[in-house]
């Protein structure tokens, strides 16, 4: 009965004639260590780990940008940065944090944890997964390349993270900075859509036997919903970016007023994406919290079906509220009212989650470990951020708050107090699983408190700043407006937050090398990922588990004999089928992504002026496309045969048939 989860089709006969010989070009890398193993990996755990490393790196980059912002605003009339540098800084801070820190960090967990939670040996399309990763890296490179190029003709993006037309048109920002932003986001979009399609198929199709949809762990459910939001919202920004790019490079009139264009269209297309995007940032966080709270309360999640359903509700409603970012654009009373009310509605399903989390705590045995601390911190901070969201949703109130520091306060509460807190909790929670080591409780809690306090000291005063009329995106302010104290406190808080995060990172790095080793399942957890040894073996499950209940692993722990018998039987079945099927590594996804990087570079770096710029541009772009095509063609030609390994009942690999290839 065991599922051979990586084989594409059961129909390929096991005893088919020896496959056609493999020409040298379709060489299959087999390195398990060293650089090549990382560049060609298709293992969802390695890919997840790489996502995590890149995301945390960019989190630090975005954090340093934030600290520069705060340093500039520490005192009125500050001159740490020039106006242009400041504008670049907040644009890149926002873009980096959202697209290069929080999203890939969520993707890291999707990759690493989700297949383990559903009892799968890999994702549905392992090579596509690698392609997503490398395309993400390509996008990140394009987005940041401007830092290293001359600021007067290139420079890093400086149009704000939502890049409102027509400021981003060639007339107003002629340098290439905006091109990098456009192309970088475009590549990130490709990466996200590809990854999400993969996750959707994986969750729908690769579940272990017995893992019905209503037994899926909540984190997996939120992964699924997030993936849907991604594939359905990114197209809108893709189109907006295409239109902007056409305006900049080919002189079209989408947002060109002199040609009859309406710049307001950009705002609509952007926020059709932008609002679902903020739920893309929070739903994975909610998923993580929904795993941690039950584990440390030693109780199942309260009201599982309704938590799942409300997640789907939030996702769906998220597509119907985008214009609440545009209350001040003069939409007319009816549209304003409609979007105002729809936005309020979202508080209901979100509230439902809140209540159920509290219900989970109620009557539990709460173990105050570090992940639990961060998760509780999430509940508090996200609630406050949600309330200020509801204040925004009342359109007349928002007319005063929009583009003021009140908005900055709102979204940092939901983004840091929400997403980041939960992600930091997730790192603590799954660290033992990923690396077999546990973070010290003392240092974990210390970093939690510094981060928690620093965060509130930074962002709570911003509510008052906003209500006191301080506009956002301002590199300077005068001392007579009553904003001095607030800014000073916020800056001090930001540095405290920085110290907290520095401690957090230092502790993680220390633990990675020297931390206390722990055995399997250190938290007495409830879901399947904890049923395997840590760090997880490449093949994940020696025997694909059979699921009998929600919180499958908890059930296993309480029905050990029954499960042991079942497992032994299935292990025999597996052997009879030729062992554990593993996907082959491949270099072609990387090649295709490098091709995209070259395309991106061609489109952005060179001028579209006639000679010589246009030739360099066309040449580089076409060369890039050629590389992409080669990558994809070879990728499909090499096929996904894979190989089999055999393991003993301790999980040691006895043999693999890799040599055959």
């Amino acid at each position, binding site marked *: 009965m065991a599922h051979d989860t990586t084989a594409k089709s059961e129909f390929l006969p096991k005893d088919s004639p020896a496959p056609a010989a493999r020409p040298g070009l379709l060489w299959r890398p087999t390195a398990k260590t060293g650089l090549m193993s990382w560049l060609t990996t298709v293992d969802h755990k390695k890919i997840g780990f790489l996502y995590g490393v890149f995301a945390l790196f960019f989190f630090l980059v975005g954090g340093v940008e934030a600290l520069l912002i705060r340093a500039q605003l520490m005192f009125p009339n500050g001159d740490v940065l020039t106006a242009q540098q400041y504008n670049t800084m907040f644009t890149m801070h926002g873009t980096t944090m959202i697209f290069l820190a929080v999203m890939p960090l969520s993707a890291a967990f999707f990759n690493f944890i989700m297949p383990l939670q559903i009892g799968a040996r890999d994702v549905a399309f392992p090579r596509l997964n690698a392609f997503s990763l490398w395309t993400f890296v390509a996008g990140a490179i394009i987005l940041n390349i401007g830092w290293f190029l001359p600021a007067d003709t290139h420079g890093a993006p400086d149009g704000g993270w939502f890049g409102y037309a027509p400021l981003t048109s060639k007339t107003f920002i002629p340098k290439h900075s905006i091109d990098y932003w456009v192309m970088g986001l475009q590549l990130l979009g490709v990466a996200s859509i590809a990854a999400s399609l993969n996750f959707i198929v994986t969750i729908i199709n690769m579940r272990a036997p017995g893992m019905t949809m209503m037994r899926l762990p909540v984190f997996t459910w939120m992964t699924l919903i997030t993936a849907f939001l991604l594939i359905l919202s990114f197209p809108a920004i893709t189109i907006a970016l295409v239109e902007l790019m056409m305006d900049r490079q080919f002189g079209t009139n989408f947002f060109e007023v002199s040609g009859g264009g309406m710049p307001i269209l950009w705002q609509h297309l952007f926020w*059709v994406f932008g609002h679902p995007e903020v739920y893309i940032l929070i739903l994975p966080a909610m998923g993580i919290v929904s795993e941690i709270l039950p584990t440390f309360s030693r109780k199942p999640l309260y009201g599982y079906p309704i938590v799942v359903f409300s997640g789907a509700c939030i996702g769906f409603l998220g*597509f119907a509220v985008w214009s609440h970012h545009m209350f001040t654009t003069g*939409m007319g009373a009816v549209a304003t009212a409609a979007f105002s009310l729809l936005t309020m509605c979202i508080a209901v399903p979100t509230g439902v989650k809140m209540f159920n989390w509290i219900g989970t705590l109620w009557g539990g045995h709460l173990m105050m470990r570090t992940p639990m601390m961060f998760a509780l911190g999430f509940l508090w901070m996200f609630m406050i951020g949600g309330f200020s969201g509801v204040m925004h949703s009342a359109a007349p109130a928002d007319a005063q708050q929009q583009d003021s520091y009140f908005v900055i306060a709102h979204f940092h509460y939901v983004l840091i107090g929400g997403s980041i807190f939960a992600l930091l909790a997730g790192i603590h929670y799954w660290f033992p699983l990923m690396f077999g080591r546990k973070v010290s409780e003392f240092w974990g809690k210390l970093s939690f408190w510094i981060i928690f306090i620093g965060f509130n000291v930074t962002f709570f005063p911003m509510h008052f700043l906003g209500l006191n009329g301080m506009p956002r995106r301002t590199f300077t302010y005068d001392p007579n407006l009553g904003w001095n104290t607030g800014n000073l406190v916020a800056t001090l808080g930001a540095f405290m937050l920085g110290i907290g995060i520095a401690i957090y990172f230092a502790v993680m790095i220390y633990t990675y090398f020297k931390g206390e080793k722990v055995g399997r399942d250190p938290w007495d957890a409830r879901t399947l990922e904890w049923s395997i040894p840590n760090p997880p073996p490449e093949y994940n499950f020696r025997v694909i588990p059979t699921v009998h209940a929600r919180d499958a692993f908890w059930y296993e722990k309480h029905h050990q004999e029954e499960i042991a018998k079942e497992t032994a039987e299935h292990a025999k079945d597996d052997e009879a089928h030729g062992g554990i099927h593993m996907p082959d590594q491949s270099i072609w996804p990387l090649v295709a992504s490098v091709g995209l990087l070259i395309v991106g570079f061609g489109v952005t770096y060179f001028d579209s002026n006639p000679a010589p710029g246009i030739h360099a541009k066309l040449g580089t772009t076409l060369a890039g496309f050629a590389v992409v095509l080669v990558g994809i063609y070879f990728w499909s030609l090499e096929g996904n045969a894979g190989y089999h390994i055999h393991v003993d009942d301790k999980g040691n690999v006895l043999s693999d048939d890799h040599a055959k290839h």
Partner: protein
Amino acid sequence: MSAPAHAVAAHDHDVSKFQIYVQIAMLLAVITGVEIIAVFLPFAKWFLVTGLVVLSTVKFMFVIFYFMHLRWDKPFCTILFFIGLVLAAGTMWALIALFKAEASLPLPV
């Protein structure tokens, strides 16, 4: 896990698929023809617009349910696609409604 052999089961409807496909293609061609002619006829505008929308939807549905086999596939495929379709249609509708509003009239030049 059922072996492939189990699945050889009833496939009788497959025999007639060729005919179905050809018939549907003809139907689609005819509808297209009707559409092309209709726009030049002196009907009321609202009537024609409704008519065109309905006819296009009919074509759309025939293609996805027959050519794209949704009719014979697991219902989940239909659900999956319709999530996207409904959201896209809803968003289009909302966008166009927003731009129809008086507040969105562009400035006279």
